[in-house]
């Protein structure tokens, strides 16, 4: 039990500190009065205010899963070059905010010497948003950080250089819960299962509620049953599509299966309301094996898609817009990816993806 003193000292519901404390004076003075921005070079932004003041941003990579050592190191750099000010982006890059233009190159020099690439702005591949994977989640069908590492190693030049038709946003999620905007990414890498959950009939009645377990299945594959006189559930194997939601609700239905878990690749999602607006990511490759530590099948598949897009996309054409222009038939033929039965939707709105016109390319 806490002492009375401790309880008093303990403040609750204070919320995060007000952001004003963390804003550079140039930002405070020109807050809401920015006039325009320029990308000076890949990874370097200059925002000019109506007052004429300029704040420079250097964007640097981060593996997101970082040690306090890493944080202390970037703090050192921020103090040395940025009056101590820095921020993170919504894609987990580090942004150094500089008042002094002359500090840009020395900062970049130090970062690169220490193995931290600079880039991710404009028409490039930015950091991959991702999830916990084997590092921290019970649900994971694959590792997230590892996939990010090997894919970014492969695509590093597109992070450092703005050499693509448009922004290319990649996301990784380790299970169908999709902790991130995986469902709306230019390219998504999604861990998944391919076999039916194994029911632990011993534990199930003790730790799970039967009705909520039955209700958890999107496809009504789970039914209540009795095993050796005890309440449990059974799965209609023909209806299960391995989503793992029953496992989320009931721990006694583990779905992990190292032999069959793996990775799928999705393309053509988008978040921004630009031009053709937001859209979901669509299936490109239904299954690639989990082949840690470097998932060669995955990296080469992603590399291939990116390079085909880089060669064929037109300026300002996001992956979705490029595919929209050339058509999916051509996407599959250009990338050499095989179109299969699995690519044809068979869930709730399936029919709406069927081609309901004779309009098509030969």
């Amino acid at each position, binding site marked *: 039990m806490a002492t009375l003193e401790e309880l008093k000292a303990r403040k609750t519901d204070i*919320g995060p500190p*007000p952001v004003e404390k963390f804003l550079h004076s140039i930002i405070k003075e020109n807050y809401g009065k920015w006039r325009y921005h320029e990308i000076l070079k890949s990874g370097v932004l200059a925002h000019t205010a109506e007052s004429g003041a300029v704040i420079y941003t250097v964007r640097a990579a981060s593996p997101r899963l970082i040690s306090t050592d890493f*944080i202390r190191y970037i703090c050192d750099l*921020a103090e040395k070059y940025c009056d101590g000010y*820095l921020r993170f982006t919504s894609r987990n890059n580090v942004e150094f905010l500089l008042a002094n233009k002359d500090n840009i190159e020395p900062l970049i020099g130090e970062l690169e010497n220490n193995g931290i690439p600079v880039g991710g702005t404009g028409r490039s591949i930015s950091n991959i948003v991702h999830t916990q994977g*084997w*590092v921290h989640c019970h649900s994971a069908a694959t590792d997230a950080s590892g996939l990010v590492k090997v894919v970014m190693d492969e695509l*590093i030049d597109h992070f450092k250089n703005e050499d693509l038709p448009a922004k290319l946003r990649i996301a990784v999620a380790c299970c169908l819960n999709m902790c991130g905007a995986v469902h709306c990414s230019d390219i998504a890498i999604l861990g998944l299962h391919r076999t039916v959950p194994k029911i632990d009939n011993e534990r199930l009645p003790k730790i799970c509620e039967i009705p909520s377990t039955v209700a958890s299945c999107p496809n009504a594959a789970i039914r209540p049953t009795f095993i050796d006189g005890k309440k449990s559930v059974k799965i209609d194997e023909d209806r299960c599509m391995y989503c793992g939601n029953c496992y989320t609700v009931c721990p006694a239905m583990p779905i992990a299966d*190292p032999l069959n878990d793996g990775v799928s690749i999705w393309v053509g999602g988008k978040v921004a309301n630009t031009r053709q607006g937001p859209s979901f990511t669509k299936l490109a490759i239904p299954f690639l094996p989990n082949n840690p530590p470097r998932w060669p099948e995955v990296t080469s598949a992603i590399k291939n898609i990116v390079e085909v897009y880089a060669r064929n996309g037109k300026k300002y054409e996001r992956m979705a817009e490029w595919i929209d222009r050339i058509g999916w038939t051509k996407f599959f033929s250009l990338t050499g990816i095989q179109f299969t039965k699995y690519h044809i939707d068979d869930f709730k709105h399936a029919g709406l993806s069927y081609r309901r016109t004779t309009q098509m390319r030969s």
Partner: protein
Amino acid sequence: MSETPLLDELEKGQWPSFVSEIKKSAKKNKKAEGLLGQLELSYKEKKTHWKHGGIVGVRGYGGGVIGRFSDVGEEFPGAAHFHTIRVNQTAGFFYTAEALRKICDIWDRHGSGLTNLHGSTGDLVLLGADTDSLEDIFCELSKEGWDLGGSGGGVRTPSCCVGPARCEFSCYDTLALNQDITMTYQDELHRPSFAYKWKFKFSGCPNDCVAAIARSDFAVIGTWRDDIQIDQDAAAEYVQNGLDIQTDLLAKCPTRCIEWDGSLRINNPDCTKCMHCINVMPKALRPGKDKGACILMGAKAPIVQGALLASVIVPFIRLQPPYDEIKGIIKKIWEFWDENGVARERIGECIQRVGLGNFLEAIGVEISPQVVTQPRDNPYIFYEEYYEEEGGEG
């Protein structure tokens, strides 16, 4: 430290290595060492070694900590308890070196030394605490002015784009609204009592740099209502500098409402505020002056009934402190959800179940054609008016 031949492979290559990060901490920290060993095992066996869930927390809070226990804790004692503490990040992810260092100090003292900056929802995530040290960590953090973020069936940690702090496009003050909402709903954030999770995200313009439309139950995305502001000289400059205005700008306008004949002409009533032209020529074009935001609701990941993008609830709203109008809407929505929500059903699914029309009616928001891309195409209409025998409309 144990041998990690597989993970070592992930120290190669040019992208900064999370394995190197774990190793840095593992050198001085038993918990990080445990994680390293367990992760190598996962790489070998191609499976996770975390047990399902586990409820832990700090007093007075119903969320903010994700319990995590290893199923190989005996082999890797450091990993046996490895809970996550979600620290509510600053609006726009702005920090000073000083503030971050204080968090590092606390975390080095009590935890694994490993973090996520940031979690996908936006929290500053401290990764790997023992059950016993949770209270201490919480107290020390709060002494430094930090509080926990959300988890479970309640408000999750709101997050926002950099907005007016460093972006010329921002149509409202994302950081201020983010902070105000976070403070207003501390109770809903820390003591989850909803049917399921509720995520707020704030983007300053339709570029939506915080992906609000894809992953928040309540998304506020800046926009404007009047004419795009044009600086014709700057436009001419872009063209002189080689911009292919036909291909890269005019032809990419979704409603083809811009023309160029040496100067730019925009047919503003046809503009859908897609941002493209402004993005291409930020020096020449700017959002209008009548600024505000669009409220969209119901985005979510696929589980259970398929992923959803958020959909328009309020086409345009002005946003100024004290933000009473938007808070009034939120109040009505939560009352509605309280009555109509079902466990594990996100508000987006709930709205679809009861019907967007009924939902708007219930929360007292005007029904305009802007909330749909097209009217219904099926004849299954629930008529509510009809004539009674006497001839009156029922």
